[in-house]
């Protein structure tokens, strides 16, 4: 295939004035151009045009999605009650202990109870490093700090962990937003080695009005790191990675 007339078969709006003149004035060029145009026309129609989805399918899908979102909202408020009530109960118990001057259970050296979660065996966090790759049709490529994620690519994380603990991945660009695990930070206990979120995780491409340069953080903590009102929990190790979305 020669490279000199790669423009043959293009639509008029993609041709330069010289190319259009060449097609108009030279019969052999015109014939070759029309042959390429005809070849492209074979691709205009879908393979089969019967029994296609209709607009009702779209509205049904969107109404299901709306219902699912509203149910999710109701579930969220129920869940917040489920969290709030035990917390109030816990505060009441602590207050009672203070009044009675009792020794806290976890201050006793022989007591195994640890507040705020189940302790992880194995000595706790030692180090954490966040890495990422960009995936597209043609394969994947590693991303370094400051790398650009191109339009057709999706973002995937990998975290190198030494020691043990609970791992979360956060977006700390504007406030703190937990992106994996999606809810319960105690659901990703890890030990030494490379960790990767499961396939349910999809990092959302920033919207048109959102900041395109995003700072992601892998955080490894001895206990499940509940992020409350955007405040970072204490006693955790973290590793940041700044990436730019195109």
């Amino acid at each position, binding site marked *: 295939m020669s490279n000199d007339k790669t423009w043959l*078969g293009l639509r008029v709006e993609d041709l330069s004035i010289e190319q259009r003149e060449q097609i108009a004035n030279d019969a052999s060029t015109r014939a070759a151009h029309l042959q390429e145009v005809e070849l*492209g026309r074979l691709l205009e129609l879908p393979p089969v045009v019967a029994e296609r989805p209709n*607009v009702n399918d*779209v509205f049904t899908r969107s109404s299901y999605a709306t219902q699912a979102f509203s149910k999710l909202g109701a579930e969220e408020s129920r869940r917040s009650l489920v969290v709030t009530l035990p917390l109030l109960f816990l505060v009441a118990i602590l207050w009672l202990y203070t009044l009675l001057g009792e020794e806290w259970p976890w201050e006793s050296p022989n007591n195994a109870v640890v507040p705020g979660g189940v302790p992880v065996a194995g000595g706790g966090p030692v180090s954490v490093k966040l890495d990422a790759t960009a995936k597209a*049709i043609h394969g994947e490529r590693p991303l370094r700090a400051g790398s650009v994620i191109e339009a057709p690519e999706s973002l995937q994380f990998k975290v190198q962990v030494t020691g043990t603990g609970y791992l979360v991945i956060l977006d700390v660009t504007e406030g703190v937003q937990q992106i994996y695990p999606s809810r319960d930070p105690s659901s990703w206990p890890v030990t030494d080695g490379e960790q990767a979120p499961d396939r349910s995780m999809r990092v959302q491409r920033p919207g048109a009005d959102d900041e395109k340069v995003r700072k992601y953080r892998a955080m490894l903590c001895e206990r499940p790191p509940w992020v409350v009102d955007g405040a970072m929990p204490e006693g955790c190790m973290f590793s940041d990675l700044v990436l730019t979305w195109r």
Partner: protein
Amino acid sequence: MSLFMTRKATPEEPDEVLLEAFKKGDRAPFLWLFDRYRDSVIAYVWRMCGRRDVAEDICIEAFAGLVLRVWKPEDSFRESLTSVVHQMCVTHMARIANEPPRSAGFGVPLPGSPEEAVDTSEKKATELAVASVPLGYRAVLLLYYTMELSLDQISRVLACDRDQLPLQLAYARHLFRRGRAL
């Protein structure tokens, strides 16, 4: 009678006018937009992914996303829609990349593939030829001829150099023609 008569949109209006009318609460323009792009969107995804059910699902999902304002069209509706659809297609292919291929005998079209669905040998030759073009070139070929994007628009959707596209497109046509000749 009001001094300011509002003109009703018609099916022949440009995309942006239909979209604006839909935003104001009129459902008919959305139907016309859907009808305008449904076949090409399904054809694009079907030929890229090789699965009719996935193509129809992505088509419905993309338009449902427009209704729910999950994505907002920018300057060109055609380009924005194609960009969303292409992204969903890539995501689907990445998700199934590690799955074992669906079984079919040598030379037998896979169930649900375009070449299995068509009824004439002429159409079968076309679909087999499309399927023989490697994915990167196939995307360029289909974005140009099926989605009817301009070279500038394709360069933005695929984030590639516009000046390289005529050569890539010519090579994609060459592969397509060779596939039909086999």
